């Protein structure tokens, strides 16, 4: 703390959603130029706490909150985000608050455009000043350079890869002249390691200028790396508030989940499956926006776990999506000697493949339907399972069997829910992901594509998902092709790892290879 008096102080914050207490007696201080790490499992209350600080309408609509917030020694009570912005609080959201059809510049300067005088002002007032696009573009180029990325200021947000969207949003917040506090909610979740590093540098620079930063992340190494102080939330309560020097990944993780967690290191498997290729991908080209695959050749051995890594936007996600028929693909894919028909999800499933999509909410789940239907759907549609004939005429869903299988997977994957009939939308992110996993397990596939299976889920769910993948690989011999942007995760579970760069496979290395080798491949060297 620089001068004794905190910049921001939250006292006795409490918040209820219906009868559910999501925050209880939270006390938090933030000094000038301090970086505060806020960590907790999904659903621990981090986002809600930040929504309260930022005056998001959702808080008012669900009955407000209790407690006081003091900013610069004055008590404040924001009823909408605009008040918070005026008071100097900026927030980079987990879900992007950008206008898709506006360019980067337009988004960054929205509602605070640089304007020029025009004669119409005399008649109609200040709102008729014209935009000084040149000045704005110049400023944006400078901002982007500061962030250490390469975004064209005229690119429409809708055409950017996710990581660029994130940088645009950050650029918008840091450009506010009188920003005092910046809240960044999981900014690095969608970024690759180098991009994340660039972002952290920018945050450090901002802190040095006296801005107080609240940094929310699941990546504990980053938190330890950048933060001065760490606050751990669990089930709506503040568990720890310690200087980061006095903690390490293991202790933070155990505070978060409330018990000790073992290391994420799995025992390496004896022998690496058969040597000849089982799934062979030749000259694959996939038209997936932001993740285009240009020319991928990849040989997958039976019974192995093959990791696919690489920087964001280089095409690693396109491979699984292309083979499974979700985006238009060209080339040839052979499975066990038989050629696979491309661009047909049904044929891909029938050939014995299954897919955990990286877009959980958009593609992976029927959010408005029950857990039971979500788990049963692929099995029913692809293999005609879980159906029964009635009077020899109708083929009907077999509700009893669906219930059985759902209950089985709820237990096996420890899905926290009220029962098989609960609607998936009501589950937390980690539990939704477990439903996605259950869905493909029910198919007992020969080959499983798992794209970012642990993205945005908490440490407990992460461990469970990875163990289940390992388990089916070992016990049922399922060949797994796992795509992830976290190299550490790939190294902990995979036998071999392919690194994708610029839409091509830059190289395939055994998982034990030194980290630097992977890094070089990622950079295309």
């Amino acid at each position, binding site marked *: 703390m620089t001068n004794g008096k905190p910049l921001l102080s939250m006292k006795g914050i409490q918040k209820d959603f219906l*009868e559910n207490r999501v925050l209880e007696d939270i006390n938090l201080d933030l000094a000038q130029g301090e970086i505060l790490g806020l960590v907790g499992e999904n659903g621990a209350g981090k986002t809600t706490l930040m929504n309260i600080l930022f005056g998001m309408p959702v808080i008012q609509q669900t009955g407000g909150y209790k407690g006081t917030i003091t900013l610069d020694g004055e008590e404040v009570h924001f009823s909408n985000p605009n008040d918070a912005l005026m008071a100097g609080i900026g927030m980079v959201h987990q879900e992007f608050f950008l206008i898709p059809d506006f360019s980067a510049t337009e988004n960054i300067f929205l509602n605070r455009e640089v304007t020029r005088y025009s004669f119409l002002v005399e008649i109609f007032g200040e709102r008729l000043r014209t935009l000084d696009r040149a000045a704005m573009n110049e400023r944006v180029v400078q901002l982007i350079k500061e962030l250490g990325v390469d975004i064209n200021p005229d690119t429409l947000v809708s055409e950017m890869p996710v990581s660029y969207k994130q940088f645009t949003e950050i650029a918008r917040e840091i450009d506010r002249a009188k920003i005092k506090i910046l809240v960044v909610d999981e900014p690095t979740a969608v970024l690759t390691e180098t991009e994340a590093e660039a972002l952290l540098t920018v945050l450090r620079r901002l802190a040095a200028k006296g801005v107080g930063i609240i940094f929310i992340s699941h990546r504990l190494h980053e938190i330890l790396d950048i933060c001065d102080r760490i606050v751990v939330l669990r089930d709506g309560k503040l568990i720890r508030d310690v200087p980061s020097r006095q903690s390490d990944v293991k202790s933070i993780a155990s505070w978060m989940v409330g018990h000790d967690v073992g290391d994420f290191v799995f025992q390496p498997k004896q022998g690496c499956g058969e040597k000849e290729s089982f799934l062979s991908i030749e000259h694959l080209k996939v038209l997936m926006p932001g993740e285009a695959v240009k020319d991928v050749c990849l040989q997958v051995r039976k019974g192995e776990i093959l990791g696919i890594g690489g920087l964001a936007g280089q095409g690693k996600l396109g491979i699984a999506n292309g083979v499974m028929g979700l985006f238009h693909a060209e080339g040839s894919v052979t499975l066990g000697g038989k050629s696979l028909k491309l661009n047909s999800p049904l044929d891909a499933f029938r050939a014995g493949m299954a897919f955990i999509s990286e877009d959980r909410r958009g593609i992976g789940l029927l959010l408005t339907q029950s857990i039971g239907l979500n788990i049963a759907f692929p099995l029913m549609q692809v293999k005609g399972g879980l159906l029964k004939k009635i009077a020899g005429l109708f083929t009907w869903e077999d509700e009893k069997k669906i219930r059985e299988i759902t209950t089985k997977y709820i237990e096996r994957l420890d899905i926290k829910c009220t029962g098989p009939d609960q609607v998936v939308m009501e589950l937390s992110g980690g539990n939704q992901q477990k439903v996605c996993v259950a869905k493909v397990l029910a198919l007992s596939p020969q080959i499983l594509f798992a794209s970012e299976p642990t993205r945005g889920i908490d440490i407990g769910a992460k461990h469970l998902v990875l163990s289940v993948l390992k388990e089916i690989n070992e016990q049922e011999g399922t060949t797994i092709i796992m795509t992830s942007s976290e190299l550490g995760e790939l190294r902990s579970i995979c036998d071999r790892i392919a690194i994708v760069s610029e839409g091509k496979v830059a190289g395939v290395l055994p998982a034990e290879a030194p980290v630097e080798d992977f890094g070089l491949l990622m950079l295309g060297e």
Partner: protein
Amino acid sequence: MKNEDRKPKGRVGEFIANFGWPRIIIAIFLLLLFVIAPFIGIDIGTSLSDMLVRVGMNGILVLAMVPMIQSGCGLNFGLPLGIIAGLVGAVTSMEQNWQGLFGFGMALLLAIPLAVVLGIIYGYFINMAKGDEMMIGTYVGFSIVAFMSMMWLRLPYKNPLLVWGFSGTGLRTTISLNGFWMKVLDNFLAIRIGAHFFFPTGSFIFFALCCVLVWAFFKTKTGIAMSAVGSNPQFARAHGVSVDRMRIISVVISTVLGAVGMVVYEQSYGFIQLYMGPLYMAFPAVAAILLGGATINSATISNVVIGTFLFQGILTMTPSVINGMLKTDMAEVIRILVSNGMILYALTRKGKGMPK
């Protein structure tokens, strides 16, 4: 968290939350009308019978909304397409002088294949404009009615009971079913109590049968795939379901139900109205299912049944009670007000129940 889901207290609260305030208010209003009715000289037995006959008459047309809502095509404003098929089936059956239940059955048999063909074409239109299905439906409905207005004059129907007397060609605007198959379903096993009360058993059995068929369809593999297309087309596609095909199937089923519903409507009404008759017939059906608690992306059979009862109840009772009190004829005005008001209300709640 939606406002309507707030704090259900105990069983009563839960019931209210499930049933929804709008429906409770309208049900209470309907009950009130029945209480007031005797005091201004309106016979309860007659009113009740009127209501039940109208439910039997309109029920299947309301049911025709369900498949398209479930597949994500929204409300079937293109219902006139099915209705036209029903009309063609009916007049063709009458042209042959087929009478009684046989005539009714033949009308259905002739109407259904036509509805399938029209439904497939309508389905292609719907798939061309994803996101604007309801707009497309409205104009498909309007267009077919205008087109058929020409065709009714041109088609080679000869039966003197159907065509204009003076020219001998072209179908009349209103054709009576008297002597053909008027009220064949209504009178089948009908229950009469006293001088005024009448229960159209046959129509109800037929309505119930159609409901069961639609309900059972949504338990089949195709039916479940269709619901999945409605709740998340991306999900369905990723699991090997052909989204376009499912949407066309749903449109075909909706159109066939529209055709069947129309033939049932005609037998109960006793007349066939051609030309501009079907122009606005989608609107009461849309209003009824919305009143029953459906949204534009989810509908159940109970929405159909509850909605038809409430909507037809209001339509029967409000005009007669208000006419009784004001001594003027307000029937049409109130019908338009209630049905369009209901549609407006429902469309403004478009987002409810949808994921973000």
